[in-house]
């Protein structure tokens, strides 16, 4: 009896100690799930674990800073590295939610595209919001945002990402505003009213999505006739046999960065991971798995033409493109989202 008890006791303590050691060694990386996280797993997470011996624990989320703020405020930070959208990066940096980038580990700033690096963030991908439709259901699809809004020519439901960001720009583009005038117009009351009025026209036909995996699902099941989507998810669905078409006219592209959460217990390993993932050799492999641009200048040059034509930054695709204005969204996100919520709940 005593022997059994001691054996049990030592087994439990041994197990707990092992768990402690394991958790202290593993790095938690959080991304947006779905096809893009699968690509990240293949190109970054598994090779990094293999070469450095640090285990990576994955998690996913749909954007936003709430969980990060809760973690930092309550001093129980369980996430280490986070893939974060541009406005959230700027906001988080201003509010002290992210660690400052350690350039000793990341190397020379000059090797990265200038607009992708910042105080608290290391550029990870350049991605885009595009129109997508199923060529099997629509023989001739929409060519631009005016077509997206045209319910007579293309009857059926449309998918839009739930939130003000992106949709206000698209509404103005559909209303005939030129891309370089969109943000100056949105800073005025009349501009915002105009965008919401245009959205009102489309409202009965809209189905709202929140997770990046939903638009390709809905296109496949026929729930929507066309939708906005992250461009990489659509191209990757085509790799799996679907027949979707990406419309690049009027694309809204932005940069997602890696950030390290303030108070993370694995700060050094986090920066090691970011340095690894941003290095030219590793980063250049990413677009082959999912068509997003990368921040490393050399890596960008090295991408073969076949893959490059699906990237948001391919010169042909940049015609009539709009770069998401981070400063604008950081400042106006709160009130525009509040107005959007009130509008969408009616």
């Amino acid at each position, binding site marked *: 009896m005593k022997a059994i008890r001691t054996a049990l006791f030592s087994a439990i303590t041994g197990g707990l100690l092992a768990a402690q050691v394991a958790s202290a060694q593993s790095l938690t990386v959080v991304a947006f799930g779905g096809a893009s996280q699968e690509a990240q797993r293949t190109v970054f997470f598994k090779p990094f674990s293999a070469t450095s011996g640090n285990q990576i624990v994955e998690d996913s989320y749909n954007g*936003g800073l*709430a*969980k990060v703020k809760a973690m930092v405020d309550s001093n129980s930070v369980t996430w280490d590295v986070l893939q974060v959208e541009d406005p959230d990066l700027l906001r988080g940096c201003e509010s002290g939610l992210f660690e400052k980038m350690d350039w000793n580990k990341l190397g020379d700033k000059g090797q990265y595209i200038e607009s992708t690096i910042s105080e608290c963030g290391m550029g990870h991908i350049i991605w885009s919001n595009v129109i997508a439709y199923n060529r099997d259901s629509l023989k001739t699809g929409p060519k631009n945002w005016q077509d997206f809004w045209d319910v007579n020519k293309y009857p059926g439901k449309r998918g839009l990402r739930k939130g003000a960001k992106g949709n206000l720009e698209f509404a103005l583009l559909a209303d005939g505003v030129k891309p370089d005038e969109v943000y100056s117009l949105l800073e005025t009351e009349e501009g915002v009213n105009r965008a919401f009025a245009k959205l009102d026209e489309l409202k009965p036909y809209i189905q709202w999505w929140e997770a990046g995996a939903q638009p390709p699902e809905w296109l496949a*099941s026929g729930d929507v006739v066309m939708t906005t989507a992250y461009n990489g998810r659509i191209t990757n669905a085509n790799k799996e046999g679907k027949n979707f078409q990406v419309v690049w006219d009027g694309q809204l592209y932005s940069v997602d960065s890696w950030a390290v959460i303030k108070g993370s217990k694995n700060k050094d390993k986090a920066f090691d991971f970011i340095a690894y993932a941003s290095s030219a050799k590793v980063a250049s492999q990413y677009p082959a798995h999912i068509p997003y641009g990368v921040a490393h200048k050399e890596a960008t040059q090295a991408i073969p033409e076949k893959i490059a034509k699906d990237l948001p930054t391919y010169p042909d695709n940049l015609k009539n493109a709009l770069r998401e204005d981070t400063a604008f969204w950081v400042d*106006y996100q*709160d009130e525009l989202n509040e107005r959007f919520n*009130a509008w969408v*709940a*009616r």
Partner: protein
Amino acid sequence: MTSLSTNVELQGLTEEKSLKSKLRRSQRKQKFKAICLVAPLFLFVLGVFVTPICIMLFKSIDNPEVHKNWPETTAILSDWKGTELPPASFYLALSKDLRNSSENKTLSAAAKRINFERSGMRSVITRTARNLNKTPLESAEKEAGKLLESHKRWGELATWQAIKRSSSPYTSLYLLNAIDLTLDNDGSIAKVSEDQAIYLNIFGRTLWISLVVTLSCLVIGYPLAYLLATAKASLANMLMIGVLLPFWTSLLVRTSAWVVLLQKNGLINDMLISMKLIDEPLVLLFNRPGVYLALIHLLLPFMILSLYSVMKSISPAYMRAAISLGARPSLAFVKVYMPQTLPGVAAGGLLCFILSIGYYITPALIGSPQDQMISYFIAYYTNQVINWGMAAALGVVLLVCCALLFAIYNRLANKHDLKMG
């Protein structure tokens, strides 16, 4: 003779008195024992349930962002009447606070709070701070000049009034917003503009959906519970498993299953089309009927089990007696059986209603934005906007609604002797 009888009487009285005090003492002991048994659970509930709720209620009036991070501005505004534009010293205090808080990374918190008070202030504050940080701190007049140059709003009375209101330690703005009211520039209560007034509507929608779901559960669950209570043991056991099995499945799994069933090319539409009952697929998802369907499915076991437990304890002798006294079976059911099941109806109804009011995930996955209930907005303010004051305020209003409804129910229950205890 009399002394003997009084003696006996006195003895009787003292005996009575000591008996009474003995009884009281033993009752006190019993009470003490009972309290000791309950104490651990009570402390647990107090710590894990009551305390967090009180903290949440407190968050709905707590207002720390501005008075903690901008101490000089708060101090200098405390005596300000708010009737005319402040002098240059105010601008100096504000400039110092802007510089300090942007260094401490607390600027955006204060800016966000003031933006909630007056729309558009966030961008004004962050841009002004960025401009100020490019120059060193100078005299009051110079700082005032810099602020006014950065943005014309610093010369408006409404801006300073908003900052003064945001800097008080407690605020009523969250609670007011939760019922579609707001504070005017001079601090009086006013209605929120038409396109922003959604919460009263949403509270009404939440209560209505819960009511419909509860009544539907009652109508569907009552016959099922009756069958369960009166059927043969073998049949009843099988039916009971049928009720409990979905109950044991995760809520999220059941909701996702409904998405698969109800979608455009889902099982229900496919079946109806193959049976040639309809030509075009029905729209059953992302609308109100889908939400009702899923919620009723989720809450039915609660209703059935509550009714079943009461129905099981009703002796069949009552019905037989009623019929033997000459009543038709239907009359006997209505007059004799149903009234005895009312406590079960009340318990099941209350349970379903209160559960349904709090439902978040099911309408979020199955409904359109016009079907979202109040819990969706509480989650939105907690998770996406990080405005915990607003989330707490909506929670407070919901709590008050439920408390009122429960008080009304209690009143009615007392009158009709429906108490659950």
